[in-house]
């Protein structure tokens, strides 16, 4: 009983926020207001309350802001300086001289509270029942840098940062059009995160947009820390291994998807934006595909699809062949396979699982460690463990080749999420193959395909040009046709305006 009693101070299961206090209005007494502020922000050492006398009106005032998230230079130069020293000749009572663009007035406490938390500074003036809010916010932020995960050869070297406004600006930079609409939404009760939904109003399908908004509105959580969190809340099939919304850190990619008629959701404080609705083939595209020549791009893209199948089925095929269908191996390969497998004490599926799991662990270790140590881990894992395991007779060298090929094949997928999905799908396939051989593989493929066909992204079919067969879209799936040949937006976006280019091709002098 004692054991239970110790925990009987249960955390309350219903989420209650301490919001309902401080519902009153701003009082005309300055000191009352300060007391109120201090009761709201108790235990807040970075709260700064600066008393001053406004030179113009000679009235008592207090400027309140949170140190660190405000720009102190702006406060000194454009708020304090004018207030303290400027004396206006014309005695207009209404305006206080502040050389700032964005000024609000309010008299409700919740607004004041959120303004302070947003890095704005609030000016209370004695005998006045409204507070002035000056936008001086300057959250710590990172400069715009090159992308780290989705690097590109000849695309722009600009990545999204953690500041939502900057990210929106980066997209606007690509699309100077008044039809680029931005809808602002706020999600999260405690950490209110700002979301910006960007789309081309005359292109995007309104139903899809509505669907996205509805889903976002239904979210009721404390905070959205990252774009990935939001994506998980709004995606259609959370039980699917495939990602149904695309996260990218490349503004050029995001803008090109907006131009295709898709919707981009920028999450403040996240360096990724969410693109939706997407189709399966979006995960195999990069912006480099469009900036390199079309034959090269098509070749690389075909290779990615090939790599996709290889990464899923290669270890499984190996298991199936070794344990069930050795007949299919040509004689010479069979002899060398047999010789290399001869010393291995484990059945092939255990062998494969050992190696695949080792590889996955190495990969994860390499990501989390600092770059320099990460490289060492790679060397230790790849060379030392691989070689030693073969020498010790734990795995065959063909298995090492298979694992290495699988790894290379899964690295070729440009999208990290899709790459991880493949890594996961691989294991059920291996189990199926070790139980039923090729028949198991076929069943696995069937299940995968069935699942793939049933998937949806924001209510639009996920496997679009392949699963609902839409041949006009095939120009940009396995092959990338020359740019002038792709003059329509993909059908999968359900865009209300399909034509995106004139199919005329300028031919230099000959025209």
């Amino acid at each position, binding site marked *: 009983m004692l054991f239970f009693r110790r925990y009987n101070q249960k955390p309350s299961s219903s989420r209650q926020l301490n919001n309902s206090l401080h519902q009153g209005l701003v009082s005309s007494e300055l000191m009352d207001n300060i007391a109120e502020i201090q009761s709201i922000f108790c235990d807040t050492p970075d709260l700064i309350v600066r008393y001053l006398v406004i030179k113009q009106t000679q009235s008592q005032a207090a400027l309140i802001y949170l140190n660190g998230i405000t720009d102190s230079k702006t406060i000194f130069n454009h708020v304090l300086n004018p207030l303290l020293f400027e004396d206006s000749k014309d005695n207009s009572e209404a305006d206080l001289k502040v050389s700032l663009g964005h000024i609000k007035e309010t008299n409700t406490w919740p607004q004041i509270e959120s303004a302070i938390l947003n890095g704005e500074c609030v000016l209370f003036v004695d005998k006045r029942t409204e507070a002035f809010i000056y936008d001086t916010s300057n959250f710590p932020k990172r400069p715009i840098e090159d992308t780290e995960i989705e690097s590109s050869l000849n695309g722009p070297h600009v990545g999204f940062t953690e500041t939502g406004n900057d990210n929106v600006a980066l997209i606007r930079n690509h699309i100077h059009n008044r039809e680029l609409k931005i809808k602002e939404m706020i999600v999260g009760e405690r950490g209110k995160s700002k979301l910006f939904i960007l789309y081309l109003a005359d292109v995007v399908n309104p139903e899809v947009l509505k669907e996205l908004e509805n889903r976002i509105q239904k979210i009721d959580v404390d905070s959205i820390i990252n774009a990935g969190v939001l994506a998980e809340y709004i995606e259609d099939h959370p*039980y699917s291994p495939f990602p149904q919304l695309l996260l990218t850190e490349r503004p050029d990619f995001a803008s090109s998807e907006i131009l295709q008629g898709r919707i981009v959701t920028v999450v403040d404080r996240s360096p990724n934006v969410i693109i939706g609705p997407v189709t399966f083939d979006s995960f195999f595209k990069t912006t480099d595909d469009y900036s390199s020549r079309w034959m090269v791009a098509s070749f690389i893209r075909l290779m990615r699809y090939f790599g996709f199948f290889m990464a899923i089925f290669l270890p499984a095929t190996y298991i199936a062949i*070794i*344990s*069930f269908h*050795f*007949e299919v191996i040509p*004689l*010479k390969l*069979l*002899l060398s*396979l*047999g*010789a290399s*497998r*001869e*010393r*291995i004490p484990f*059945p*092939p599926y255990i062998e494969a699982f050992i190696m695949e799991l080792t590889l996955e662990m190495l990969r994860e270790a390499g990501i989390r460690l600092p770059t320099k140590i990460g490289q060492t881990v790679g060397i230790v894992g790849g060379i030392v463990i691989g070689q030693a395991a073969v020498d010790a007779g734990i795995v065959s060298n063909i298995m090492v080749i298979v694992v290495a090929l699988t790894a290379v094949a899964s690295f070729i997928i440009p999208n990290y999420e899709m790459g991880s999905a493949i890594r996961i799908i691989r294991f059920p396939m291996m189990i199926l193959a070790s*139980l*039923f*051989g090729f028949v198991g593989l076929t069943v696995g493929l069937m299940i995968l395909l069935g699942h793939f066909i049933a998937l949806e992204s924001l209510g639009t079919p996920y496997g679009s040009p392949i699963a609902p067969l839409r041949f006009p879209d095939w120009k940009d799936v396995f092959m990338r046709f020359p740019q002038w040949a792709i003059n329509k937006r993909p059908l999968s976006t359900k865009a209300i305006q399909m034509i995106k280019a004139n199919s005329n091709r300028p031919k230099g002098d000959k025209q």
Partner: protein
Amino acid sequence: MKRMCLAILLVFLIAILSSCGRHVPLEDLTISLILGVDLDDENNLIISESSPVFNKDAKKSVETYQLKAKSIRASRKYFDALATGEVTAAKIQILLLGKRVLEHEDWFSILDTVYRNPTFSINTRVIVVDGPVSDVIFYKPADKPQLALHLKEAIDKNNGRSRTVNNTLQVLHRQMYEKGLTPSISEIKKEKNLKFVGVSLLNENGKYVDSLSIQDSSLLLILKDEQKQEVTFTIPMKSLDDEGGIFNKNELSIDVNRVKSKVKTKYDQDKFHFNYKIHMTVTIVEQLFPVGKVKEKELEKMIEKELNSRFKVLIKKIQENKIDPIGLGLYARAYQYEQYKKVEEHWGKALAESNIDVSVDIDIKSMGAIK
């Protein structure tokens, strides 16, 4: 929760199912690569088998067994008793048939399991051994790869150079059952080395009747229209007056680039008439007699004459033995069905009585790089 239950149930069911699967990893198998069928002196059936040994500690890389058994399938249990792993027939590359087997009629039924059991590969090469099979299957030359590999490569290469027929089990089956065709199988002999000696010809019941030399096999392949990319003939120019001497001064080698053969089938005066017109485009690759001795046109004539006479000898041999390795029965059936239907059961005899003309037409394309 419901999903979880379902998933667990599914995994459980799958785990039960897995017990039905045949599941032996590669290294635990004894994979037969050669299967030999022979008769001993008292006409007992002898089955032999050879398979690779993967273990590095083993001195020999091949294990070979030979034993008496009632049938091929029955032999497996005895092999299992001898070999390390489970003996499997799925990768048999070569089927060796002793000539003693072929000298009996109706030997083909012994191969029934090969066709009935789906684990057997149908692409197994069939080779006739002139002499006892054990001589070949236990032969382990120091300068060759494993026997199975060696034999397979050798027969494929010889077939690629149109020197011998390539008989897989599938082809043999077809030849045994097709009434307008009799089987022909390539033949090896173990003397000092193992070598291909030509083609054995069987009659419609599968009984061995005669053999063809390597050179005649090429002619047979041309008649069957199955020649591959390179056919080479070395022909003595007998009509040149001088004797060859030590260095065979009258020899000529030609490389046949293209063969076009046409068969005309007629039925006339209670006889079948087959009229072969073979047009060959050749390149001269070797000419030991001096230049200018013969003109190109004459040369063509001489080659034609020589080849014609060779074809005649071959056809005579075929007709004497009442067999049809060429497959003229197919032509007869295709073009003279009414008549063929009557003699279908004894096609060999009908062919022996029929009239086969071969006329070769040679076209020299090039005399080579030097004059």
